[in-house]
């Protein structure tokens, strides 16, 4: 019984939250890795692209709510998501046209592009705050729980409850669908294959008649969609605050780098590695141990390795270790 209680506790506070957070990081990391693989630079504006997409989605959600439109048990934000994706895709395509293309034509070194994307980051950052402000916005509606803790306790007879929130289930389901669609697109469609070819060997892709402009356009479309979906899922699961999205850049980059930059499969694996590390290191293990250990051995402290205030240190440490010992990541991406 105690083992089961410990397991449920672990599920409730570590495994489920980390899986959901990992799925969000994976979607964010996919966007970063696509830009890195095809446009060949690290896009520091990705966190703020997510914030912008979420902002537009929130505005449309509020508009729908004011008209009395809702999506039943699911959050209304899902209905607003296509509008957010369209607006974000338009924004990143315009940014590319106005900013990145100029530097691409000049064939500047990737490090210049990183600086350029930092500039874009500040502009998008300002744009988002200008539109929606700096404060917290809660826009989740619909049913809150798929399974509540008390329902679970009544069903199982255990001391510990297991709650599954609708947003958690939604995050995981959406991530699965999006990832499957993305891989199908890259593996089987003509355009998807041409993107992989362009990422693999740009000069040879040109010699094969693949149009670089089209590849770049499709990439930004995908990046806009991935960023918005990741941002909205994160916002529904936690809450929306522009500064949090800026901070998300670090775990997202850690996820993409752990998996191997430029490798989509790696970004997904990396997302879960980072999420599970962050959650397990900042979780207070005392209660789990109290179920598993004989009473005399239960530690007095919280057994929390790191305060949650320092959770970004986990991503940072992972980033440093990977870059020192395995710069191409777990799945052999491109070396930085």
């Amino acid at each position, binding site marked *: 019984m105690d083992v089961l209680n410990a397991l449920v506790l672990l599920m409730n506070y570590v495994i489920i939250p980390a899986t959901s957070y990992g799925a969000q990081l994976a979607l964010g990391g996919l966007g970063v890795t696509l830009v890195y693989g095809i446009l060949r630079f690290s896009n520091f504006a990705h966190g703020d692209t997510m914030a912008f997409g979420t902002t537009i989605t929130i505005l449309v959600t509020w508009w729908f709510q004011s008209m009395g439109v809702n999506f039943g048990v699911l959050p209304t934000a899902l209905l607003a998501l296509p509008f957010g994706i369209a607006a974000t895709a338009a924004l990143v395509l315009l940014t590319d046209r106005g900013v990145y293309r100029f530097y691409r034509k000049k064939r500047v070194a990737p490090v210049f592009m990183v600086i350029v994307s930092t500039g874009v980051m500040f502009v998008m950052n300002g744009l988002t705050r200008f539109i929606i402000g700096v404060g917290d916005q809660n826009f989740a509606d619909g049913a809150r729980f798929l399974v509540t803790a008390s329902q679970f306790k009544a069903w199982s007879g255990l001391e510990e409850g297991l709650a599954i929130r609708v947003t958690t289930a939604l995050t995981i389901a959406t991530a699965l669908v999006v990832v499957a669609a993305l891989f199908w697109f890259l593996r089987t469609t003509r355009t998807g294959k041409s993107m992989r070819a362009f990422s693999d*060997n740009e000069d040879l892709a040109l010699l094969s008649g693949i149009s670089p402009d089209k590849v770049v356009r499709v990439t930004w479309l995908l990046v806009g969609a991935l960023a918005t979906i990741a941002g909205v899922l994160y916002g529904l699961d936690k809450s929306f605050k522009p500064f949090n999205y800026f901070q998300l850049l670090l775990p997202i980059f850690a996820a993409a780098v752990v998996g191997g930059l430029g490798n989509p499969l790696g970004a997904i694996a990396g997302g879960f590695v980072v999420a599970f590390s962050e959650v397990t290191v900042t979780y207070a293990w005392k209660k789990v141990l109290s179920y598993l250990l004989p009473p005399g051995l239960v530690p007095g402290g919280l057994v929390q390795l790191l305060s949650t205030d320092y959770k970004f240190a986990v991503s940072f440490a992972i980033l440093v270790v990977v870059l020192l010992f395995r710069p191409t990541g777990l799945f052999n991406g491109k070396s930085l």
Partner: protein
Amino acid sequence: MSFLIGERMTGGYGPVDILHECTLAVGKGEIAVIVGPNGAGKSTAMKAVFGMLNLRAGQVRLGDMDITGLSPQDRVALGMAFVPQTHNIFTSMTVEENLEMGAFLRRDDIRPTLQLVYDLFPVLRDKRRQAAGELSGGQRQQVAVGRALMTRPKVLMLDEPTAGVSPIVMDELLDRIVEVARSGISILMVEQNARQALSIADKGYVLVQGANRFTDTGAALLANPEVRRTFLGG
């Protein structure tokens, strides 16, 4: 009458000219081979013909068309294919995907051409699901040539196709190139192994310091005592 001709080409990558009035030509279904010492500008001359180098003087013609001002991509659309010396395959993609990418511009059924390439290089059929980067050097070169053939080119340009492959594989690769030429495709190639390459060449060009030194049929160049003494080692 030559099908593809680069005439009196002069130019280089920067302000210094590498090519000096260099002329290269290949007829329909012929094999033309460019040989010469290291640094003679062989690869540069190839790149000039394919539009990857700015020419200060001279012109390139395909059929009766002046293509001097066209980009490499436009030349691909006109029926020219180029196999670079290195980085000539998509390493992370399967053999078949490599071939498909070669046919990217085509909107018709590519399966007959795919069969043709597999018949020419049977080993590629066995490895078509394998990542091209996992193949041996000789097999990679076959993928590279196969990718170029997928556009159904009129002219195939090869930059040292036998670089870094074993002598046996080299002979086989050259045999295949002869076969390709017999099907009516003109071939212009740069080769380090001058003796073998000239023996299959209809036309040979010996370049020295970016200029034509000797131009003749392959057999005549092999028989020419001066060419033998200076370039073929006796």
